[in-house]
């Protein structure tokens, strides 16, 4: 009877699998809606012209960091629960974890290393050290010497090396009054020394049951927000011949959404669509996309803390920064 209930509950959840392919479509629609400044006609125009591949690649870029995040969080919670629960397999997260091969974990670490912003790599280090510590506790009966090594010596050495690398940036953040960044760089790694311990059973169960759902909702909210903001089309400026009654050239900044042999369909930064005759366009240039502009100017080993290791250093910004057309000023 009980197994029938469990099976029935499982069947009830199959609708979620059925609708899951619809989630990216909804996200993409939201993205286009945002890009068109919440205007229905502009949204329709964009849907007509924007390459779905561009949108899909934006979606992929946006979710790249979430895959390793989800894997590592699930692995950590499951590893903790396995240490404290009498029947770990009753936990949904432990069952999911059992299906994740070891190579996925390592790949997730690598992916996170390159896809997470540098300022969040402190959290990655914390998770890595916590997971290594918990793994050693699982094997302590066979190799008892491994526990102090993995739970104390390794974290202390790794944290010391990490602090050596980021200390100047943390001090600079503090001097600039950016306490959040300073805390983000310094605080997470030492927490691994607590997270790699066996938690009391009741506390672990209570926190991970509710906490897991909470973390999931939190990550989903951040993902949604970041996805809606991620740029799909490059920012360009077009310089135009003087309009009738005017003597000076003008320049528009925004996105080119379509070009044919007669017209350029141009979406300005403020969401206004313009149709520009091809012969009115004198010149055009790619501009710096300020929607990606970092909040902090602090760098670690030459890279801005809000960039990922995969991203370039933005050397082009200096060149793009001075092109007057990008600020609506004709040359």
């Amino acid at each position, binding site marked *: 009877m009980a197994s029938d209930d469990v099976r029935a509950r499982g069947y009830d959840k199959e609708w979620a699998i059925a609708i899951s392919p619809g989630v990216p479509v909804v996200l993409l629609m939201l993205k286009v809606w945002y890009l068109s400044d919440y205007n229905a006609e502009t949204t329709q125009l964009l849907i007509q012209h924007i390459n779905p591949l561009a949108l899909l690649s934006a979606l992929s870029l946006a979710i790249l960091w979430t895959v390793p995040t989800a894997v590592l969080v699930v692995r950590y919670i499951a590893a903790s629960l396995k240490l404290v629960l009498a029947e770990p397999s009753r936990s949904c997260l432990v069952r999911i974890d059992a299906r994740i091969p070891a190579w996925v974990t390592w790949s997730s670490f690598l992916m996170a290393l390159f896809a997470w912003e540098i300022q969040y790599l402190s959290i990655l280090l914390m998770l890595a050290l916590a997971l290594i510590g918990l793994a050693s506790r699982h094997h302590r009966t066979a190799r008892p010497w491994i526990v102090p090594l993995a739970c104390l010596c390794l974290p202390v050495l790794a944290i010391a090396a990490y602090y050596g690398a980021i200390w100047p940036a943390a001090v600079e953040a503090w001097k600039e009054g950016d306490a959040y960044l300073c805390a983000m760089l310094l605080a997470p790694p030492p927490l691994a020394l607590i997270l790699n311990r066996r938690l*009391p059973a009741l506390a672990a169960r209570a926190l991970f049951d509710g906490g897991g759902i909470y973390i999931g909702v939190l990550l989903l909210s951040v993902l949604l927000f970041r996805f809606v903001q991620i740029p799909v089309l490059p920012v360009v400026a077009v310089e135009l011949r003087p309009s009738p009654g005017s003597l000076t050239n003008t320049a528009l900044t925004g996105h080119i959404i379509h070009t044919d042999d007669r017209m350029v369909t141009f979406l300005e930064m403020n969401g206004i669509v313009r149709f520009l005759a091809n012969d009115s366009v004198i010149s055009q240039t790619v501009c710096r996309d300020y*929607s990606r502009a970092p909040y902090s100017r602090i760098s670690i080993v030459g890279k801005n803390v809000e960039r990922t290791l995969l991203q370039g250093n933005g050397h082009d910004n200096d060149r793009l920064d001075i092109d007057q057309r990008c600020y609506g000023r004709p040359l």
Partner: protein
Amino acid sequence: MLRRRRNPDRTARRIDAFVGTLVALFMLALLALGTFAAVQAVTRANTESIYDLLAEADLTGADMPVITIGVRDGLPGIAERRPDGTYKGFDVDVALAVAKYLKFPPEKVRFASIKIGRRVEMQGQEGSRFVPVDLVVAAFSITQPRKDEGVTFSEAYLYTRQAVMTLADYDGTLQSEGDLRGKKICTLTGSTAEPILVENEITYIGRHTLNDCIAELRNGKVTAVRSDAAILAGFIVRDPGDFKAHDIGPSAWERWGIHVGHTTVPVSEARRKLVDAALYELVRSGEWQRLYDAYFSRAQPVVGEDVQVAVGQPPTIAKPGFRE
């Protein structure tokens, strides 16, 4: 005598419960921190960018092909128009750095001479023609009366004090406001020195330019010229051996700021944020120190040890709260 024995199981349970509570609190704190970090990440990504502010400040678009900045003329070391029409001085270099931050390269910056009395209404001059300027970088001290008149000031970019300057052969003692009484002083009309002279009942004449004051000093019509030490230093360096600076005791700081627009103009607030950020960058990059060394550190030995030309520490300016 019965001795109560401690139950080891009970003690262990208590310790376990205590540790459990601590760990639970720790995990809750961790979740709270995670939430805070997520909120911060979203808030920061949603903060306005410099581009948004430039648009808000009306510094983009075809109407702004160049930026016009009002600077003083005839103040050696601060702002001086050279025969070829270009300007040179500390204020000029500060103005160029601010313009660069606002995405105007040097060739897109137009300077206009601005008289001391025209700074509040931001009216510069190109020859005999008056032109409205976008910014005023003109040895303009931040004061409450000026703010009340509607001036929107940036943060201060230079700290100096008032001093007086006499001919080098002057052998009297000028060490206080009292020493100035009974003597005739020349200062700029509308300057911050004027109300102090009035308050201390010191006889003075007002002139539109310091060169006029210096002419009066040279021909003996006045005993001394009063102005900011950083301004007087330029004349002492220009004509070495002709003048002498006197410290007249501690006076209020003269904090030079940039006038970004009248308070009633909607774009002024966005311009103030941008100019403050530009000054922050000027200090952060070390450019401020380089300019100070070039214009004031070299002047200090010529002026002498009595009068400090300007404060050599870079001004403290808050980090801009937008994405760059």
